């Protein structure tokens, strides 16, 4: 089943074209990795799929479970089951983490026509997830990402993902800034989301995340287009040879 279907996607910021004809299909059960040098359009792709203002789609289409994704608001995309994991999660002082988690879960439930989550069950689930992410309960009562280290922020992203159980997780450089222990915990978290009914898209610079979360497909994004796709061996090749050889070969 097609979860995400991107067809000939073009997008620009201001007058500057960034995405120049992206084609990508993610089926349920698949893990894709998108790699590419700085400035290739990886983060732009994430922002466009997330519905960020300031990015203008000039051509092409994106469908999520067969529905037009681009005409939906950011929150509608989220409650429909698309989760964007941020490269730089923003700090929101004053808004408790636990409050965000509950609001987010209830927003999703409301979109599904379900009643608000039972607080007791919710707390139990959240505490288990927190523990599994190697985080202290105190995190739940701090402001969202407020004063968190880089690694703590990324773990917090995965914690949210595991609670919300998105159909498609789009993780933008979730591995950046992690030490090896944190990388393992984050990878385990991502692997727990894997399932026959879900898709995961990992946007990363490095192979090292992919040794923990093995992708089914690897794509190389360059100058706003996917110039090469392959299986996980492509990431290894990239690691060994660098971008230049692959770019030369592709052109």
């Amino acid at each position, binding site marked *: 089943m097609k979860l995400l279907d991107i067809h000939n996607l073009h997008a620009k910021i201001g007058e500057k074209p960034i995405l120049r004809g992206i084609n990508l299909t993610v089926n349920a059960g698949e893990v894709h990795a998108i790699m590419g040098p700085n400035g290739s359009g990886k983060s732009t792709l994430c922002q466009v799929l*997330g*519905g*960020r*203002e300031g990015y203008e789609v000039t051509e092409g289409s994106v469908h999520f479970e067969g529905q037009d994704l681009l005409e939906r*608001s*950011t*929150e509608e*995309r*989220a*409650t429909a089951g698309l*989760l*964007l994991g*941020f490269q730089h*999660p*923003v700090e*929101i*002082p*004053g*808004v*408790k983490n636990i*409050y*965000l988690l509950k*609001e*987010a879960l209830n*927003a*999703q439930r409301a*979109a599904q026509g379900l009643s608000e989550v039972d607080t007791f069950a919710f707390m139990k689930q959240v505490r288990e997830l927190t523990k599994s992410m190697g985080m202290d309960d105190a995190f739940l009562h701090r*402001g*969202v990402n407020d004063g968190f280290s880089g690694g703590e922020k990324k773990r917090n992203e995965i914690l*949210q993902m595991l609670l*919300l159980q998105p159909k498609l997780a789009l993780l933008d450089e979730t591995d950046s800034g992690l030490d090896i222990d944190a990388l393992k915990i984050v990878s385990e978290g991502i692997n727990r989301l894997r399932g026959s009914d879900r898709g995961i898209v990992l946007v990363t610079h490095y192979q090292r995340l992919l040794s923990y979360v093995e992708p089914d497909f690897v794509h190389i994004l360059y100058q706003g287009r996917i110039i090469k796709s392959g299986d996980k061996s492509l990431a290894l090749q990239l690691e060994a040879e660098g971008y230049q050889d692959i770019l030369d070969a592709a052109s």
Partner: protein
Amino acid sequence: MTDRTASPTISDSQEIEHLVQREYKYGFTTDIEQEIIPPGLNEAVIRLISAKKNEPEFLLEWRLKAYRHWLTMTPPTWAHVHYPPIDYQALSYFAAPKSRENAPKSLDEVDPKLLETYAKLGIPLHERAALAGVAVDAVFDSVSVTTTFREKLAEAGVIFCSFSEAVHSHPEIIRQYLGTVVPASDNYYAALNSAVFSDGSFVFIPKGVRCPMELSTYFRINARNTGQFERTLIIAEEGAHVSYLEGCTAPQRDENQLHAAVVELITLDDATIKYSTVQNWYPGDEEGKGGIYNFVTKRGDARGARSKITWTQVEAGSAITWKYPSCILRGDDSVGEFYSVAVSNNYQQVDSGTKMIHLGKRTRSTIVSKSISAGRSQNSYRGLVHIAKSADDARNFTQCDALLIGDRNGAHTFPYIEAKNPSAQIEHEATTSKISDDQIFYLQSRGISEENATNMIVNGFCKDVFNELPMEFAVEAQALLAVSLEGSVG
């Protein structure tokens, strides 16, 4: 630096007016119901007001003295607010009961926008009609509730009634305390209020009594519609304790543009008064037309040792707010607290804050001020911490935080610190922040709407103050902020 504000008022909601009119047969002011005093202010008008209220001689003299002093004064110009000069001779100083003829006959005739707001605030259906000024008989059935309430208070020895009533039932207490915290000559608006005040609340908690329930203007059924020049006096004797709630989250309209209230609080040894306000007077329209001028003097005198006065306010309404609920920490070891959230949107102007005057030894004060500015509003915090020579080992902690929504508004901070005693410890922290697009997008990407995202951030920002509010007020205050900031984002 930057930040904050507040504004004020007190007021009975119009539902009280309904009840009042029904209960009026008990009032000594019944005879003036049909009377109209023409606009303008002079000694004859003040004599007339006093006579109509059948006041004792001392009170008339007090009013006249205030009036004569007021004539020598000029309106303050130091506040960071702008408005055309007020023609005091064009105002009416004894409001006749409002004509019901032009009132809406049913909710169908009420502005749907107003009704929508009531719904968002969770105002019960049967109260909406009263709040909107619908010309029906008193609509809510709290008379019996109120009666029970008053009986309970009487048992405890608490006196809670309208100011006018207290003038007759307890003139000696009024005489002893009136104007001892806010002297008639204190400032321009306080002097005006002292000369012409209409009515307000009177609370007396005798020695050692802990008031068995929170007192709310909601239950003050015997007070008249006193929005314009309200006067409130609360006295807590030795060891007494009371929590008083004023105002209401529902938007309140009033024909009187100028509101100049005075509130005086007095605590004797070991007494506590907690005074909470939610103010939502009409702020004017989106273009800045209309709206209430709220020029209020509120002050507490922690006269006794170890006594405590806490002001908590959520200020959302009024076109212009000029308000500085203050504490005179006279008793040794007395404590003053000020917790404030002031939100301004569109063209609202707020200049608010507090004064903590430390006179006694080891006196402590805390100021937490949160301002939220949206639209084209101007929001100023103005605060004074004064440590007198006599105040050994006094301490103050001040925190002023400003949150900006949009980029066309202003937040300002004017902190004044005067320490005359070298043992004083004073801390002042101030922050200014802005709700960023990144924060909103982050929350939206978790499925939360833009409006709710803004509310989450605003409520998080105000948490320290909301925590100080009585529970049901805190919930209402959150809803009020959401409504006040509607349309300010995006």
